[in-house]
């Protein structure tokens, strides 16, 4: 690429050298410098750019964009994937909205998101701030914090299933017993199932967030801390008045990512409880899965894609809101 640029640069002076230096550039010259003929486009490396781009365009188009378009189409059809699909208009959307389980799923997903926000969101920040204060063995603590991310999610869930054993001899219940807290039902009760899932999800995801916050903390200018120290600020005042305001951008991004991520929670309820007990952990994505696969033997792909499209629209709105907010923030 540097070769191409050099040859372009060599050609430029010849073109611009033609008019006298004191006269304004002629329109023709302007056109020649702004638009490029197909030949110059090819000479400029346009063809190889396109050839390099083609595989990616193909992969995205074939595996990502075309399924998206097809699922939107399928949301308006009834199909068993075998016979020709029939168009049913907005029936699938109406059926989804009439499903009594949809309300439960939405509330459960919001509950999961809220719990994750209250407990899962601040934890990595606190951990990262504490770890950044540690003077020795920082790498060791980072590795320790990141370890759960390395464990394959399915393995982690199977492990935690054992930890969540509801009998008094279960791992967590034994630990609780040491401090005099009675045995908890964990996954075995509609009241405690969802908080249990959040507990595992927080453990599993915190490591990744901690690493990001640690990196962001490095970018906080040390002079700010020095100045605060000179002013006699305590550690809490330094965190409140220096660290958090400096991290505000990254905090906001992580927040939005978490909200989008929790709206799509599937793995935990699917593997831990299959949505039970008594539908206490049925989430929107699990409901989509059930509609498409579990109960229907191929009858409800339309409804499943209709619900997916609705979820995608909500998430798109959230993302749009996020862009609007950050835009205003960055200009203020």
């Amino acid at each position: 690429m540097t070769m191409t640029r050099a040859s372009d640069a060599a050609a430029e002076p010849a073109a611009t050298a033609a008019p006298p230096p004191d006269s304004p550039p002629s329109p023709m010259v302007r056109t020649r410098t702004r638009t490029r003929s197909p030949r110059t486009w090819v000479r400029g490396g346009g063809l190889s750019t396109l050839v390099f781009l083609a595989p990616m365009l193909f992969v995205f188009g074939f595996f990502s964009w075309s399924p998206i378009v097809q699922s939107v189409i399928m949301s308006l059809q009834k199909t068993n994937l075998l016979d020709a699909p029939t168009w049913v208009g907005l029936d699938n959307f109406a059926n989804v909205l009439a499903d009594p389980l949809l309300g439960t799923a939405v509330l459960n997903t919001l509950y999961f998101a809220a719990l994750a926000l209250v407990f899962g969101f601040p934890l990595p920040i606190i951990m990262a701030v504490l770890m950044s204060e540690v003077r020795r063995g920082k790498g060791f603590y980072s590795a320790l914090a990141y370890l759960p991310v390395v464990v394959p999610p399915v393995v982690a869930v199977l492990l935690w299933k054992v930890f969540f054993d509801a009998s008094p001899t279960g791992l967590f219940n034994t630990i609780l017993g040491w401090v005099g807290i009675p045995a908890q039902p964990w996954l075995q009760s509609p009241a405690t199932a969802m908080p249990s899932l959040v507990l595992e999800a927080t453990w599993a995801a915190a490591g990744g967030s901690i690493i990001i916050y640690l990196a962001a903390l490095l970018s906080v200018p040390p002079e700010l801390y020095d100045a605060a120290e000179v002013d006699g600020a305590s550690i809490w005042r330094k965190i409140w008045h220096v660290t958090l305001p400096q991290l505000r951008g990254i905090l906001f991004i992580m927040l939005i990512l978490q909200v989008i991520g929790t709206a799509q929670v599937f793995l935990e309820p699917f593997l831990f409880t299959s949505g039970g007990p008594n539908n206490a952990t049925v989430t929107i994505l699990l409901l989509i899965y059930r509609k498409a696969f579990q109960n229907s033997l191929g009858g409800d792909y339309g409804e499943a894609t209709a619900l997916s499209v609705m979820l995608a629209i909500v998430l798109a709105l959230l993302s749009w809101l996020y862009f609007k907010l950050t835009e205003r923030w960055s200009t203020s």
Partner: protein
Amino acid sequence: MKSPRTVAIAGLAAVAMVGALAACTAGGGDDSGKTELRVATFPPGADEAAYTAFAEQEKQFEKENPDIDIIGVEYEWEGPTFAVQLAGGSLPDVFTVPFTDSKTLLENGQLMDVTDEIDELGYTDSFNPILLEEVTDSEGRMFGFPRQAYAMGLHYNRTLFEEAGLDPDNPPTTWDEIREAAKTISEKTGKAGFMEMTQNNTGGWQLAAATVARGGSIQEDNGDGTYTSTIANDGTKAALEFLQALRWEDDSLGSNMLLDWGTINQEFAAGNIGMYSSGSDVYTALVRDFSLNPDDYGLTVVPVEDGGGTLGGGDIAVVSPTVDEETKAAAVTWIDWYYMQKLLDEDAAVLDAKTLAESDQAVGTPVLPVLDRETYEESLTWIEPYINVPRDQMTPFIEGVWDQTPMGEPKGKTQEIYALLDTVVQAVLTDRNADIDALLEKADVDAQALLDQ
């Protein structure tokens, strides 16, 4: 320099990738003139000996039918992925599906019509009519060969029975006795006296079984393609009250209320369960896939009260609806040879049993006859030298099952209604104050809404 080499490399990469993708979808042809037939073998994870036995049978078949080339494909019935596999062409040409789903599949047009072939082979009148009904549509067309059937059985751990001071040769014969035994096992051994499946539609399946055993039914077939939900019946209520008592009064159900077919088998094989109800043929899977110690195993009938029966089930061998006529003919030949002949013909039965026994596969697991009882019992005498399952530990079932009336599964929206009932069972087992009447009323309304769709 316009870097032609770069362009060439990029172009080559693109062509190679497209080529690789094209190769993924390219079908394999057969140049030898033989008909290739892809047939289901075992679920992923089956032990190697099972494949050795299959390879031997494949050889025997191909010797008799030199025009057909058998290709074994790992297969497990998975409702969730069935339609996708069917549409994607990755299903075998011959596979098996459970009765639970056969009606839905044939109504969806997802199975091949084999009426003429069954007639031609002369099986139409010899099949057990209750089973044949499971593969027949409203116009009398048949879509598969019933190949194996089971009745619901009560599986129990003989070792835990002994540890709890109970007699493993005299297992409980009423629901009250089951409750007593469960309580004793749980108190004496610390293990779950009884366990119940609750997840992934198995909770509904077992509740339907417990209902028919108490003379109830969760659905009425109106005979005109419509069904009436009867979930709020006395049998279902009694079944749930039984579970409620074990869970909240006796505390004899252990601590895990979220189990399905696979996980309950796992717990049983690990010796954590005193008793549970499941299909009578599960022994084969318990030993082959879950490493059960055969000495622990005991099987009896599920108690039947108030004019009830035992919920039957099983599976049918079917042909993919997408195959051509030639492959269909080969498929029927294979089904007849692999699944049917061993039920009818002494030589075939002996050869099958011998091949399986030589690879240490279970021979003689108690089932319900697909044809008639006499043929079934006669076939057992043919293969007697090869029977390797502990049938003496299954005596209470083997002797008792003939006194029970086999009942078919509900046919309308079976899986959806089972899923609804999963939550009812879970509610009773995880909420001390669950109101059974209210739960049943609600499930009944929801089920009827599904049936009316």
